[in-house]
């Protein structure tokens, strides 16, 4: 079977720093995944629609500007609303530990904060993506 895990790496909101996202994207490619990178300044609607068209298994959100508490749950909501119930939504960036429980409650499966090894993210995806 020719299956590949497809991952959307997305930068929601007005955060203009994507070096981290690109580092993760490259690591994911080297791990054998197909990575679709959206580019900067995506709205939640754009991210959800891209995820649908590309039928991704994982949405990896990168945010450094502090708007994660609003944007991440909104994206989960839109994605589920489109009927994509199996998609794994994960996030990274500048996210205080204290925000993580609420994000998980809102449907974000895991948050990978700065300093996380890319291998940790890769292993997590292998174990959890459907």
């Amino acid at each position, binding site marked *: 079977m020719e299956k590949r895990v497809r991952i959307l790496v997305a930068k929601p909101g007005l955060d203009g720093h994507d070096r981290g996202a690109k580092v993760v994207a490259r690591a994911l490619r080297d791990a054998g995944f197909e990575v679709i990178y959206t580019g900067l300044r995506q709205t939640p609607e754009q991210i959800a629609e891209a995820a649908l*068209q*590309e039928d991704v298994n994982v949405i990896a959100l990168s945010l450094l500007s502090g708007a994660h508490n609003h944007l991440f749950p909104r994206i989960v909501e839109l994605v589920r609303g489109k009927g994509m119930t199996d998609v794994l939504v994960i996030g990274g960036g500048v996210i205080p530990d204290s925000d993580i429980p609420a994000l998980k409650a809102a449907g974000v499966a895991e948050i990978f904060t700065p300093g996380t090894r890319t291998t940790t993210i890769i292993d997590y995806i292998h174990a959890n993506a459907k």
Partner: protein
Amino acid sequence: MDMAKELLSGSRLAMSRVITAVENEHDNAGDIMQQLYAHTGKAHVIGITGPPGSGKSTLADQLAKEYRLQGKTVGIIAVDPTSPFSGGAILGDRIRMNDLTLDEGVFIRSMGTRGSLGGLSRKTAETIKIMDAAGMDIILVETVGVGQSEVDIVKTADTIVVVLVPGLGDDIQAIKAGILEIADVFAINKADHDGVDRLNTELEMMLEINQEKTDWRPPVQRVIANRGEGIKELANAIAQHIAQARQSGRFNQRRKERTKNELLAMLDEKIGRHVRNKLSDEGDFDQLIATVESREKTPYAVVNEILTKVLR
């Protein structure tokens, strides 16, 4: 979910999932395509190819916008190379088409070559059919054209646009790669860069030398894709090509040729698979390999042996 039915009633989620089923070779893919086939054949398929960095994705984005202004729906298939080392890929064409993401008349799908260019050709061809069945008026297939197999991908198109840019060292390089012969329309992108006149002239000269008995001489259109310049003219050239091809009968001829090649490719694949399955069932393949390696038997004799046994 009855995927074929959902797709035909307009579900974009269904369209997306059917494409995945075909790409990942799910068991139900054949059934679904069987149901969809009657609904194909309507879309105008446009292939866009050219060297890396020539602006194909940006051009596809601009062309799609032009077609949207004309009230047409557009499907886009963006093909990028899979890493031969890791099997992964960065599918980075979509990033040039962000304006189109929320347009309900546009559907963009990124595909990796996944190490099998022949296989990709077939999967791209199937994805074209899927988008066609879903009602897309225009389907753009965008892929890097640096070799024969990428050329095969765009050969599934009714109109092939070859994108070139000035100043890529030897301007004829891309032309030598064999894509000159397949172009129906040339687009010189980044036409504000140095060397555009020279490239234009060299192209015209090569077209002059290569002039065949066909009635269509590929026009050379200058565009500046990231400024949206020359796009209408390019769309017109494409429209003229298709009109001419329909009139002269070449359109139908090409489609017939395509169907023929498709059938042959599918036959090749099924027969190949059948033989390989039989080989692993029989279990003596390793032995045969050993006899060839030791020069006890020739590979030619072994192949004949196997075929006689398997295709009895």
